[in-house]
């Protein structure tokens, strides 16, 4: 029981991170019907920007942790969003209206390019960061002596995710930008006919998706304390799995899928084998694609007239 609760806490933390990345996949898919395979790399860039940010904070002598976290978080989101915007501009927009596979191939190319770009500019070695948010909150101790605990960092990650998802959900549901995004998702041509600047809306979708992935990168840097240029690949595919599990195109689905993937990974590591945790996630992907192709909250694809 104690062990279960502990894995639950770990899984929620992981799930928050996957959920934030998954939103970017699902939003882009919803609007332009492509899987942005470079999205994992955007998350990786977010992790690198944040680690550089923390080093700069150290050099600048900003040692008050909440301030340093806030500055680095905001800078990471802005810089990474810029990357997201640029990727769309360079690699996808010129291919709009081309055959369906073209942007997908371009995305894979972009993914390889970004990996190599970071490897060349930052080096291939693993980058460490010493723990910034430390301390744990013991919850309870079992008669057997096992103490269930939640670290302050985990609390921070989960709370930040909840806040961001609430803000994001509000943005989609109630702001003019969110309405335009939903309109583009439902009928791109009609959205243009009522006067929506479709290109701008798509750009902003990439920007918001990248900003959320940046937060995930920021969290992972803090949580694991080591990153390298290759982390985007696995995390990207897992977040993609989360988006498919939740129902690609569905925002609540991406959040739910992320959470479930995090939990599956944590429980599988906890009860079976850490080495095969990735296998568990990808078996999930296979099962979902076979038995529930529309995902948990997805809609069946309806042919447009």
């Amino acid at each position: 029981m104690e062990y279960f609760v502990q894995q639950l806490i770990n899984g929620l933390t992981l799930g928050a991170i996957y959920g934030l990345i998954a939103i970017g996949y699902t939003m882009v898919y919803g609007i332009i019907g492509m899987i942005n395979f470079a999205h994992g790399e955007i998350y990786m860039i977010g992790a690198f920007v944040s680690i550089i940010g923390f080093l700069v904070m150290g050099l600048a002598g900003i040692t008050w942790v909440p301030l340093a976290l806030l500055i680095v978080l905001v800078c990471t989101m802005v810089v990474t969003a810029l990357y997201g915007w640029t990727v769309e501009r360079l690699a996808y927009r010129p291919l709009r209206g081309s055959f369906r596979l073209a942007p997908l191939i371009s995305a894979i190319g972009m993914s390889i390019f970004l990996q190599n770009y970071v490897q060349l500019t930052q080096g291939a070695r693993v980058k460490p960061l010493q723990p910034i948010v430390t301390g744990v909150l013991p919850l309870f101790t079992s008669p057997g002596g096992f103490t269930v605990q939640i670290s302050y960092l985990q609390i921070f990650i989960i709370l930040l995710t909840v806040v961001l998802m609430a803000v994001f959900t509000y943005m989609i549901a109630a702001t003019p930008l969110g309405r335009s995004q939903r309109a583009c998702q439902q009928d791109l041509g009609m959205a243009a006919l009522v006067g929506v600047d479709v290109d701008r809306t798509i750009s902003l979708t990439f920007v918001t998706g990248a900003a959320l992935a940046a937060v995930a990168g920021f969290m992972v840097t803090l949580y694991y304390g080591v990153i390298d240029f290759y982390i985007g690949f696995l995390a990207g595919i897992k977040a993609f799995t989360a988006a498919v599990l939740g129902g690609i195109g569905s925002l609540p689905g991406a959040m739910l899928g992320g959470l479930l993937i995090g939990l599956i990974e944590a429980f599988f590591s906890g009860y079976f084998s850490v080495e095969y945790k990735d296998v568990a996630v990808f078996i999930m992907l296979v099962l979902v694609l076979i038995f529930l192709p529309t995902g948990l909250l997805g809609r069946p694809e309806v042919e447009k007239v």
Partner: protein
Amino acid sequence: MLTVSGVHTFYGNIEALKGVDIEVGVGEIVTIIGANGAGKSTLLMTICGRPRAARGRIVFEGRDITHMPTFEIVRLGIAQSPEGRRIFPRMTVLENLQMGATVADPSRFADDLERVFTLFPILRQRQNQRGGTLSGGEQQMLAIGRALMARPRLLLLDEPSLGLAPLVVKQIFEVIREINEQQKVTVFLVEQNAFHALKLAHRGYVMQTGRITLAGTGRELLANKEVRAAYLEGGHA
């Protein structure tokens, strides 16, 4: 107000418009009638830049809009209720109307909404219902209402009577007349329901396989032998 001259439009290799010339004057209701596949809807969409005209010129209020992006054309004051209505199905009626107001002045939103609800009272009752759950007639009203929310000077209507019960058709045509006479909106109307359309319109064009074959006032075309034979006999008269 709107001048289309020598416009050719292609879908892939298929030439849907083969040199179309039309003219719509301020305050007019102009209709274009013709059989399925004649290119009527393509003409309306080409005016909005989707697809673009391959050749020819489209001028609106003195400005060449042939190569303008769609959203900028809409901002100049052209709104369309397109073929198939194209309601945003998973948005509420109110949200659909808000989308229609994308290019309008936000401070006038409440007034414009009231105006649309007065024209189509059923939309007020349905305002929190999803667009996709409305009946065909209600969707048609919503599509026209959505276009009106933009406060257009030129309203493009694509087959507003399609698939509707005769009573609803009558109602919709009455609303079009009202919009034109009271709100001074110029209307360009594509119809298969030639009888109603020609009775309503000041002027009309007949389109056949991508070309304009006849033009005249509504009354002239209603009396024209060819028009009667092709579009009216055995029909609604």
